[in-house]
């Protein structure tokens, strides 16, 4: 029913548009040049507005042969847009294209070859090689630089043809060109071919090529420099003198006004740094700091990329911005995404010397109005306290002062932060009563869990602990899983410490957990505690009150192999998302077993392309309903992806686990070792924490993969590291 109405309405508009179409058609075949040109402009205008003017194709074609450059450009533009829908008619245009590619005016020659490459129709491909060959050795560098890119276009359209006709070799000779822009575009094209088909070995940076590119670097436009620097950053050498030579030539680019050139130059230097002797390494690191800071004098979007990258660089070279912490103070009119990044970096840079300064600054932020910003600032205060023991007292005072404002979200965050601080510095137990005063304001699961943990841990120091815990026990079944698990542990601790006060509560909670809970984890934990408590009091005590490893840091760290990979990809999306390039953008790529599996990634990239081509095909045949169709297509694609994503995320997760174990040596392995004398399976609170945390990060990964959260580098994706380090 609805569809028919829709169709009727569409037809109504169509009829109106019919009138316009015939008017345009008349104009396009008018005997007066200015009328024809006017009609062409109006056709393009209609096209811009999204109207389908493909039916005018034959009439437009008649205007192809013209000496008016502007008009030619418009006609070419039209052809690029609608060639797919009229592949059979494109043949009529071919002659003009070939002619134009021999025009005396280099602008027209370049325009012809550029446009031919963009008309992705089989018929055109057959005619492309001839003109392409000629233009590649054109006398005008403007034409040659355009032809260089056209080779990449041809390669995309028909790989075999391009190889058979030796276009790759011809492109390689352009690296010898006298003109820097031609060289830069040849590099662009060759890099692309190399990526697309590594077996062609299209872009082999040899010693000679390297020297040529180094020479061209200083002559190039800013964009050409980026291309060449990209090539350098992917060039692998183990020869220290060669690496030194590259760095020497690239370092002057730090002074370029274009921030993208600067960042790429930094990437090149970082890539080749490890090959250099220690002394030079330090000099180069020092030299990076100023350009990095200057990247913050750019528009906010660019600053964001810079800040995300600076965080990576800081993890690798922690010392290089020590003096510069002030530049990361937020401005009151910074967009929020910048403010949060700046806070992260401030925390990364905090030291004994500047801790006081940083705390004062963060304190300012805590009384701002933006909730997200304030919570981040509070969290950062906690991180500073953990990082710099000397600052902990000041931080705790600051946090407790914040509670006086009686703002719920502040209290929630303060409690979570205080839990970490108390774990590291039990001396601050005096603060506990003030936290308990805020108990009514705290309703978020994480904060409640934190508070419950504090209550359990300090059960013997808080006189009214029973009355504080019992409301939680009463509402046990309504609490979220995380809080329930903490409650169980807390009650066991209370019982172990103060058997008289804890007995009743423990009994109640065990009963509720074992009988009324639907959650297997909760029931299991309750049963295990129960049995433990009834069998061996000493043992249960040693389990419940076991010593935990101290927190060294609560700052997010990226595992070393991933970090190195991200540093090699500075300035790209993966370095902003903090994800390996193999899976940063390709969601549907399930099988990421080996990164040598290039056919897989390729196939995946092709998926987007397939969708693009499908779209064009559909536009050609069923311009009416393609939208709905496409939407359906997307949906089904998504549903399929979901399952794969799960597998993938678990893969990632296990990877992180493995690396983490190797790296820090203080993780699960250590915790397990605590229990070696105990024959029972490890069920103490920290270990359970580990379990629940893995669960939660699983969930996060699952959810986020299917929605946008994954892609915006906010909370979700940092979470796994967060949780893993936060036992």
């Amino acid at each position: 029913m609805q569809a028919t109405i829709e169709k009727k309405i569409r037809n109504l508009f169509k009829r109106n548009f019919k009138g316009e179409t015939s008017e345009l058609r008349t104009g396009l075949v008018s005997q007066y040049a200015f009328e024809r040109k006017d009609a062409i402009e109006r056709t393009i205008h209609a096209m811009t507005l999204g109207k389908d003017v493909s039916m005018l194709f034959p009439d437009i074609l008649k205007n192809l042969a013209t000496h008016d450059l502007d008009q030619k450009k418009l006609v070419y533009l039209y052809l690029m847009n609608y060639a797919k829908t009229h592949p059979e008619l494109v043949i009529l245009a071919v002659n003009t294209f070939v002619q134009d590619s021999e025009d005396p005016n280099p602008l027209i020659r370049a325009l012809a070859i550029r446009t031919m490459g963009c008309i992705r129709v089989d018929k055109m491909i057959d005619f492309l090689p001839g003109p392409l060959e000629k233009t590649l050795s054109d006398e005008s560098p403007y034409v040659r630089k355009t032809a260089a890119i056209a080779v990449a276009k041809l390669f995309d359209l028909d790989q075999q043809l391009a190889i058979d006709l030796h276009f790759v070799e011809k492109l390689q000779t352009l690296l010898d060109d006298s003109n820097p822009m031609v060289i830069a575009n040849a590099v662009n094209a060759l890099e692309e071919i190399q990526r697309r088909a590594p077996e062609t070995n299209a872009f082999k940076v040899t010693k000679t090529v390297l020297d040529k590119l180094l020479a061209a670097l200083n002559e190039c436009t800013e964009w050409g420099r980026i291309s060449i620097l990209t090539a350098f950053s992917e060039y692998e050498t183990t020869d220290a003198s060669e690496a030194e030579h590259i760095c020497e030539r690239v370092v002057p680019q730090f002074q370029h006004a274009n921030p993208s050139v600067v960042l790429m130059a930094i990437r090149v230097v970082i890539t080749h740094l490890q090959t250099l002797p220690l002394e030079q390494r330090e000099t180069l690191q020092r030299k990076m700091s100023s350009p990095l800071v200057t990247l913050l004098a750019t528009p906010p979007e660019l600053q964001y990329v810079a800040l995300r990258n600076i965080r990576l660089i800081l993890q690798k070279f922690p010392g290089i911005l020590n003096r510069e912490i002030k530049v990361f103070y937020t401005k009151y009119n910074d967009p929020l995404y910048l403010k949060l990044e700046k806070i992260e970096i401030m925390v990364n840079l905090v030291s004994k010397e500047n801790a006081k300064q940083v705390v004062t600054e963060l304190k300012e932020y805590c009384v701002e109005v933006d909730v997200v910003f304030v919570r981040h600032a509070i969290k950062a205060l906690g991180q500073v306290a953990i990082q710099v023991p000397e600052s902990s007292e000041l931080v705790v005072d600051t946090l407790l002062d914040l509670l006086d404002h009686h703002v719920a979200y502040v209290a929630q965050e303060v409690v979570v932060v205080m839990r970490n601080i108390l774990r590291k510095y039990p001396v601050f137990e005096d603060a506990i009563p003030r936290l308990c005063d805020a108990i009514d304001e705290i309703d978020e699961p994480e904060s409640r869990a934190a508070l419950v943990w504090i209550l359990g841990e300090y059960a013997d120091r808080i006189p009214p602990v029973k009355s504080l815990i019992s409301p939680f026990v009463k509402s046990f079944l309504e609490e979220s899983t995380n809080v329930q698990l903490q409650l169980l542990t807390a009650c066991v601790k209370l019982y172990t410490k103060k058997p008289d006060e804890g007995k009743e509560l423990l009994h109640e909670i065990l009963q509720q957990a074992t009988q009324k809970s639907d959650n297997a984890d909760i029931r299991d934990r309750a049963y295990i505690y129960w049995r433990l408590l009834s069998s061996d009091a000493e043992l249960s005590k040693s389990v419940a009150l076991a010593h935990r490893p101290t927190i060294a840091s609560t700052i997010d760290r990226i595992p070393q192999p991933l970090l190195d990979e991200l540093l090699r990809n500075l300035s790209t999306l993966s370095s902003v998302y903090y994800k390996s390039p193999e899976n940063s953008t390709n969601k549907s790529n399930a099988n990421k077993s080996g990164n040598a599996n290039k056919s897989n990634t390729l196939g995946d990239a092709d998926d987007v392309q397939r969708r693009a081509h499908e779209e064009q095909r559909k536009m050609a045949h069923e311009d009416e309903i393609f939208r709905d169709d496409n939407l359906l297509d997307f949906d089904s694609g998504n549903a399929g992806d979901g399952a794969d994503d799960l597998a993938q995320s678990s893969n990632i997760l296990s990877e992180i686990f493995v690396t983490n174990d190797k790296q820090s040596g203080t993780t699960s392995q250590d915790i397990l070792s605590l229990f070696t004398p105990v024959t029972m399976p490890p069920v103490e609170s920290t270990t359970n924490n580990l379990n629940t945390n893995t669960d939660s990060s699983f969930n996060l990964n699952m959810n986020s993969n299917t929605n946008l959260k994954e892609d915006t580098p906010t909370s979700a994706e940092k979470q796994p590291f967060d949780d893993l380090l936060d036992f």
Partner: protein
Amino acid sequence: MLNAQRVHFLVMSAVFFLDKKGKPLLSRNYRGDVPMSAVETFPVLLMEAEDETSVVPPCFTKDGINYIYLSHNDLYILALSRNNTNVMETLLFLHRLVEVLTGYLKELAEESIRDNFVVVYELLDEVMDYGFPQTTETRILKEYITQKNRIFQLISATGIKPPGIGASPKPPVAVTNAVSWRSEGIKYSKNEAFLDVIESVNMLCSPSGQVLKSEILGRVAMKSYLSGMPELRLGLNDRVIFDHVSNTGAASPAPLGNKKPIEMEDVKFHQCVRLSRFESDRTISFIPPDGEFELMSYRLNTNVKPLIWVDCKINKHENSRIEIVARLRAQFKPRSTANDVQIIIPVPEDADSPKIKLAGAVFSKAKWKPELSAIVWKMKHLGGGKELVLQAELGLPAVSGDENQAKRPIQVKFSIPYFTTSGIQVRYLKIVESKLLYQSWPWVRYITQSGDYAIRVNT
């Protein structure tokens, strides 16, 4: 060997101009490898992201398609891509695209795009090919992409054919030259070059007057009206030390005299400056573009004491009134004068009925601007060493509304001519055109301005 494992392209696939609702106005598909309908999801994704959190970064990815965007006036400028795009380059390109189009259309906005779609298409074709940025020098583009089109359209309406149509332009040699920013054969009857040394002072102060952060962002802007292909060399005073950016990292030579050295934290040059030459012997040599451009920019971390200090006491009587006493002190030398000074003192949004008194300030004016929720205190000139006082009282509503108002600092705006905070000076600007050998006149001006200049207030 290139690392063969990484199969990802770094370039963008399509560029869109969208109106503020996210509806496409004009687009260019460069590679045909992303579905153009993906743009329809952009406003949805943007909205979803905004619902989710208030943090929406300038790039996100959905279904294997990357959306990288910025907003300008009432427009979104969006690049679509796939794979691991060089996002810094992409965003910068979009910014440059905005600059180029602004150079052509005066103002880049929804309306100007609609009215000039032909030239926008032409430019899109020229600035990028197959996703690779090509040239974004407005000056050079203007030589071969003209707006003759528009003129032609006007004339075609009248039916008269103008002369000269059909004589197609050629690509300027400069597009592909090593000197891609300057065309040959430029001629001026009087050869002049103007240098403006402009320093912006960024400052953040605590209410008690402690400088939390201060930096000087300087730039040397140049207007060159010189014939031929002139070789220029810029000399700065000896106090300027580029040590932090030097190659050797060795200790600097002792500065001359008793003056303290000016240590440049970082220097950036326009692409015309020979960077390798600067790296080796600190010479700033270049062939300038024609007309206006920014030759260099620099950054100094020197601790500057506030040039203009405002001590502000705010006394808030909840639900009744707010009293403000602001004392302004010009802490620069008496022989300098600050122009167009503006002090913007924030007041609560619901404040009203202002009473403002000024003391010792003959030439100053102060006004309550409800639209800014601030008192704006202005003076055309402010001599060094002067002190002024402003007293204000505003009423507050008896019933207070939303407690949480954003905490805004006092903002200070000013400019001081003939003065650089850092002490940097241009010693010489040598102009040599080896073929034409003309006489030329370099001119230099100095000015210090307020950048991000904020003083926090206690409330």
